[in-house]
């Protein structure tokens, strides 16, 4: 299994795409050098876009590529957030740096454990909707557990992290920006390489026809669990990063339904099962959500619009915005997912 694709074998179109992605990545990555992300509003907006892009991309892996509609992403997001926060508060790892990599990684580990625990009974069924609705309850159970955790989890009030921030630290959104950007890019790369490898072929086979995949020797349960666990881990890491911004994780906000529904809508709008889709969706929907509220007389209406958008997209454009570009030069393209590596 080769990880780095051979440049000479790539088509012209793929090179163009890679070039565009590289330019965009360099632009976004170096933005803090020539733009003050701390006081300018674009810093915050892009930070949130990166967080949403990460969570959307993670959902895309399980929902888009594997075809298992997970409705439990908010559980992983919140669990990642609380794992990070509680480990920090109780100083379990004795590290306690600002943006401590150990805590952020551990914030991705606990969701994996949860995903395996939940995934084993639910994903072993043939029926996809059992998985959907089983996972739907997980977010609820977890938020109830954290609400009733008493002093240990802080109950409904959560934990105030601001007092654990190192004294000599000047908080600059630049750190958040880069951390979120790094995680979003890393997530995209992980999903890209997972889905273009043999593993991705297995996942796509499962999405298209589970029974047929199983009869061709694909270990369906194993691959579904892997996709679900990776998705959970990435979502948890996003939750941990977001908590460094929030500094006050409460069950109400980190287990919020928004962390479940918005990423799904973003992926669907951008294009499920495409690598660029979650990014497009995160940009478009977050900008709508952010700026629609500033329009006079329109405050609070944007979720209604988002609901209409997702229904319209599902009805008329099931492959999303990313699919739009592929519809026009239909003959020229074959999509860049599911390529078998030799």
């Amino acid at each position, binding site marked *: 299994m080769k990880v780095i694709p051979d440049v000479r074998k790539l088509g012209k179109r793929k090179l163009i795409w890679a070039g565009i992605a590289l330019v965009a990545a360099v632009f976004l990555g170096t933005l803090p050098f020539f733009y003050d992300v701390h006081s300018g509003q674009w810093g915050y907006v892009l930070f949130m876009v990166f967080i949403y892009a990460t969570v959307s991309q993670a959902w895309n892996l399980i*929902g888009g590529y594997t*075809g298992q*509609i997970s*409705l439990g992403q908010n559980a992983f997001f919140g669990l990642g957030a609380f794992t990070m926060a509680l480990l920090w508060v109780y100083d379990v790892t004795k590290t306690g740096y600002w943006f401590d990599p150990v805590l952020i990684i551990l914030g991705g580990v606990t969701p994996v454990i949860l995903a395996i625990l*939940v995934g084993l*009974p*639910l994903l072993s*069924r043939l*029926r*996809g*909707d*059992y998985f*959907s*609705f*089983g996972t*739907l*309850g*997980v977010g*609820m*159970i977890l938020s*109830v*557990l954290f*609400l*009733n955790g008493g002093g240990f989890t802080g109950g409904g009030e959560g934990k105030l992290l601001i007092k654990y921030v190192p004294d000599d630290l000047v908080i600059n959104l630049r750190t958040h920006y880069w951390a979120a950007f790094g995680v979003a890019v890393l997530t995209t790369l992980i999903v890209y390489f997972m889905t273009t490898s043999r593993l991705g072929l297995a996942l796509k086979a499962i999405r298209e026809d589970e029974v047929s995949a199983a009869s061709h020797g694909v270990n369906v349960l194993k691959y579904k669990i892997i996709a679900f666990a990776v998705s959970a881990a990435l979502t948890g890491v996003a939750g941990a990063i977001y908590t460094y911004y929030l500094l006050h994780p409460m069950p109400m906000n980190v287990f919020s*339904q928004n962390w479940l*529904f918005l990423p*799904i*809508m973003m992926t*669907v709008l951008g294009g499920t099962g495409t690598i660029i889709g979650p990014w497009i969706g995160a940009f478009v929907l977050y900008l709508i959500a952010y700026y629609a509220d500033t329009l006079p007389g329109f405050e*609070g*209406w944007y*979720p*209604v619009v*988002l*609901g*209409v*958008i*997702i*229904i319209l997209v*599902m*009805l008329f454009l*099931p492959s999303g915005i990313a699919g739009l570009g592929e519809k026009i030069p239909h003959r020229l393209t074959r999509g860049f997912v599911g390529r078998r590596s030799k």
Partner: protein
Amino acid sequence: MGSFAQVFINGILLGSMYGIAAAGLSLIFGTMRIIFIAQGTMIVFFAYVVYWCFQKAGIDPYLSLFIAVPLAFAVGLGMFYLVFRKAAALEDKNVSLLIAVGLMYLVENLMLKVWSANPRGLKLDIQGVVIAGWGLRISVVRLILLGIALVSALVVSLFLKRTRLGTAVRAASEDMEATTLQGINSVWVCAVSFAIGIALAGAAGVGMATVYSFDYKFGFTFALKALVALALGGIGNVFGALAGGLILGVIEQLASYYIGMNWIEAVSYGVFLLVLAFLPQGLFGKRGLIKKV
């Protein structure tokens, strides 16, 4: 013992709401093979309609049953033809599922905009009336709600058993392809069963408006409860779903009495996960149905 019986009865009364919602889900699932996640949100929507009928026009909530249920039926038909007709015919059920998610998000936020986030509830004289005896106390509005649930289940099951269209719906839930081959209009069958499912949401909305105080977010929790009830009762028959709802109500009341109010949600979803994992056909469901789809 007195308190146990009381808790048990409270559970049955609470569960009747879950039962109606689950019966609607079961009906929609039967023909369209999707679990309509927006059901709870629709119930809350019709609860608001009943609330408005009472506040704006002074219509008695129980009389508005005759407004809410036909309205819900019409809304269901409209919704099916506008949104679900194409998706219902697709093999890929994820499309319908995601449309339902979008619909739930849309209706939920519409209610937030129109009726604000404050919890609403009707204040009726009848709510204070309690039947007491043998050391038990039963609230009359809740008893009426149980009555509504039983009557709706009975009506739906009579429709399914005694009418031609009902027979077609049952045939469609056994095997959609064979039904179409018999010359039955499968789109119309799907539309009717979807509309009846939403009509049941209308009936449940009346119950919710008269008994509980509700807000726009309540629907999501409620849809989950209906799902748990459906999983417990087993997909496939209306009374099974109703029984699942009653059982869930009893479980929740017992949990709240013996463990604590705050743990209700965790207990009911715990039950849900256990049922999905170990008893996927539910208590009263047909075993074959799960294997087939």
